[in-house]
């Protein structure tokens, strides 16, 4: 087994684990906000939440697999470590920016929503 293949295996396992874990975490904690945005319509909020989770999984796991295509040749152990860290770091940073974008979207939506405006 060459170093490239072992890097791919480690990368895919770690990234799928991180994406699924973070997705579950956002799913459970974001529910309250969607319910408050939809003024207490729980069933609609739950279905929107599930659709968002499915979209998030598809987008991020798809992108993680897409990144494997343009991975440079790995000759030594140090390149193995650094390229694995660089690729994982980029993906985690993308996750972080998407997360902050979502939080900003929730903030602006709740600001424009007059009922939640009073409650906040």
């Amino acid at each position, binding site marked *: 087994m060459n170093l490239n293949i072992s890097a791919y295996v480690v990368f895919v396992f770690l990234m799928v684990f991180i994406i699924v874990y973070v997705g579950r*975490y956002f799913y459970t*904690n*974001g*529910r309250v*906000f969607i319910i408050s945005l939809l003024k207490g319509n729980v069933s609609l909020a739950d279905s929107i939440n599930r659709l968002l989770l499915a979209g998030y999984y598809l987008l991020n796991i798809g992108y993680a697999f897409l990144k494997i295509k343009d991975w440079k040749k790995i000759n*030594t152990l140090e390149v193995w470590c650094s390229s694995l860290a660089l690729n*994982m770091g980029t993906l985690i940073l993308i996750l972080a920016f998407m997360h902050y974008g979502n939080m900003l979207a929730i903030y602006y939506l709740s600001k424009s929503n007059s009922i939640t405006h009073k409650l906040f």
Partner: protein
Amino acid sequence: MSNTYTVAAYFIYLPIALVLTWLVAKTLFQNGLIFMRDIFFGREEMAKATTALFKSGFYLLNVGFALYILKIYDALTGMQDTIEVLSSKIGSFAIYLGIMLFFNLYLFFRGKRASQRRRVEATNPTPVTPQS
């Protein structure tokens, strides 16, 4: 032939960066929950959820950045080189973490001010002019 100094530097840098992130996140969000309780006045589940979301964002951003800057470009030739490069890397990461900590604190204080203003507006029917 791989450079053992570089590999050793990576294996020293990564645990230190992750533990630093964990420590900063722990102190920041243990104290952040009090701010959130104040902002989401009496709505405990909202305060907890917001803290959790901020915490996961903080972890993602900082762990991602720690991994992103891991690569050492100079060829390390000895112990002295390794120590110098490692200390500059860990030092700059710690400074970055400090800046992120203060940025999060700034967000907490801003939220606190906004929620106080809204509470005053909700109790008074006439709009209050903002004071400078």
